């Protein structure tokens, strides 16, 4: 291998390391750290109750 080849190899190695790092960082930024169990826990609930249904049922016969 000539000097040029060694230099080219070093440059390619360096660029590969850069690309690897960029992809890893991108993956870290996009991947969520919230577990499925936590996601279930924080799922909102609707506390409203359609209370008019009680009047409707009350107005019916036994």
């Amino acid at each position: 291998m000539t000097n040029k080849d060694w230099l080219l190899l070093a440059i390619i190695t360096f660029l590969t390391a850069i690309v690897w790092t960029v992809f890893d960082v991108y993956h870290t930024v996009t991947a969520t750290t919230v577990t499925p169990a936590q996601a279930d826990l924080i799922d909102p609930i609707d506390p409203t109750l359609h209370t008019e249904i009680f009047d409707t049922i009350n107005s019916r016969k036994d």
Partner: protein
Amino acid sequence: MKKGDNLTLHNPKTLQALLISQETQAYAMAFLSFFALAFFTVFAIRPTLISFFNLQKQIEEAKETDSKLEMKIEQLLAAQQVYQDYQSELALLDKALPENPEFAQLIQKLEEIVNDKEATTTAFETIDEVTLLDKHELLNLGTAANAEMSPEVSEALNEMPAESIKFSMTIGSNYLNNKAVANHLLELKRIIGLTTLEFTNTKDQDNVEFPVETTLEAEAFYLPKLND
């Protein structure tokens, strides 16, 4: 020493000449620089950046989770308040949609209504299979008594999607009484839906004691408890 010169490297003098040549020194410096950069990128910069962004992401999501949990706590408190306010009324929901088919009580009610309206039930049949015990009681019965319950039956009980019992009933009386029975059925607290209602004038038919016969096909709904 120029580029392209043929050198015999086993000669120390020639090797020394090569190493001290400016071109080789420049290449060696560049090679080592890039190699060192790659090395540090892989073993130092990459882990540091990953840790940094990972921690930042965790902090951001932890804050978001915290605010959502606080919101959920508020929602739960609101739901608890609503539940306490209407606790006495909740029994009404069980009346409208019982957890079990409560078929025996349903028949008793039907009989009561028919008698009240001075009509007579001349025929009654269930359209689907109806069990007097609910699904869990049936399964427990099978386990407790060590009865021979085939896997198919057990599986069918477990997967029973039915949320209504369908029945057909024929009543005889005059038109107004029969209509009153149908109306009363629809006005019961227990939710019952009529799928078919047929009035037949039997005045011209022989051996019939009622002037009008009414055939009702209905569905009584119930809401089985969901398994967790």
